[in-house]
């Protein structure tokens, strides 16, 4: 299909327009040049990323407002989050950003195998991130650490002051100190909203990268046409950027 399109475009370019070089098969008819097409799409993806920044800003405002007014809820709530899993997930996402940036480089240089390999690693990292998030979420749901009114965690049930610890309890090695503040569920409302929205973005990213992988296998990308890899890459880096802030804001509080 690609080959026939190339031929058609070449004939078109030489005969109808009489230009010096052939139209690229992926140059849309309403763009004069590939560079113009690339710049337009790049402006478009940046505008989309800005709407994403504003979208997440709403949740960051909620976080800041509640943390300023009710710091005790955050100081208590963050103890239920596992720093180690948070750090592992941060490293997984940073690594996926590296392979995504590497994939863009491979596309720009026409390195077909490198492009495909890097995209597969990026998707695998995204899946690993979601897997770890699943472990964290199921642990919280199991303990009743749920948003708002659904919050049903009983601090006395899990910490029988040393004596009544059986093997089941030691599984949940959450060491919580201090009295439980009223409306602690607010922390988990914010936690599940922000990480949940971020998780949805990870899933969307996996779908977008899979589409890029499919097109890479078909051999669509090269030094003259690598735009879609670049645009999806920019989106993926933004998802990573948001996590860079979420990790210290949720996991590393005192």
């Amino acid at each position, binding site marked *: 299909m690609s080959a026939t399109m190339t031929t058609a475009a070449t004939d078109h370019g030489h005969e109808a327009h009489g230009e010096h070089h052939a139209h690229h098969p992926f140059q849309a008819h309403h763009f004069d040049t590939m560079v113009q097409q690339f710049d337009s799409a790049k402006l478009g993806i940046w505008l989309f990323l800005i709407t994403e920044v504003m979208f997440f800003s709403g949740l960051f405002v909620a976080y800041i407002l509640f943390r300023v007014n009710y710091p005790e809820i955050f100081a208590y709530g963050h103890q239920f989050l596992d720093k180690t899993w948070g*750090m592992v997930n941060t490293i997984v996402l940073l690594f996926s950003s590296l392979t995504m940036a590497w994939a863009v480089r491979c596309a720009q240089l026409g390195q077909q195998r490198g492009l495909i390999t890097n995209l597969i690693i990026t998707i695998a990292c995204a899946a690993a991130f979601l897997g770890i998030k699943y472990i964290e979420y199921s642990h919280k749901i199991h303990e009743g650490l749920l948003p708002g009114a659904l919050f049903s965690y009983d601090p006395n049930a899990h910490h029988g002051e040393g004596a009544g610890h059986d093997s089941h309890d030691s599984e949940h090695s959450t060491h919580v100190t201090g009295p439980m503040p009223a409306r602690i569920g607010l922390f988990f409302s914010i936690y599940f909203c922000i990480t949940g929205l971020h998780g949805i973005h990870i899933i969307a990213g996996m779908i977008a990268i899979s589409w890029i992988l499919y097109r890479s296998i078909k051999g669509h990308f090269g030094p003259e046409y690598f735009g879609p890899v670049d645009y999806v890459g920019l989106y993926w880096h933004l998802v990573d950027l948001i996590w860079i802030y979420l990790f210290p804001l949720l996991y*590393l509080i*005192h």
Partner: protein
Amino acid sequence: MTTAAAHTNHAHADHDDHDHGMGHAMPLSTLIAVFVSLIALTILTVYMSNIRLGSAEIFVSMGIATVKAILVAVYFMHMRHDKPLNILLVVFSLFFMTLFIAFTLVDSSEYQGEINAAGPFVIEKSATK
């Protein structure tokens, strides 16, 4: 075909900062150096979270996060070689985000006295004391 060849040759010249119209292939050494820095900063921020810094803690952790964000934006997102218009857009979005946060905080603190006097939130809080 000559244009394709020219583009390929150009893209191979990694250290050439000249803009050939469609971005700049980031050298692999740069990408890996940025990744190593990001991991080091992640370990640093986790390490710092174990040290009691009091009110400075939030500034330290947000400072480290911002350095990481700048590294990702400038190198992974190629902002270093992007069009000035795109960079301007990003700066504007950060400006409006700051306004959003600042105005909401100012507005909230304006009415905090009334909220504290009337809100059920605080009544419950004092009930547990």
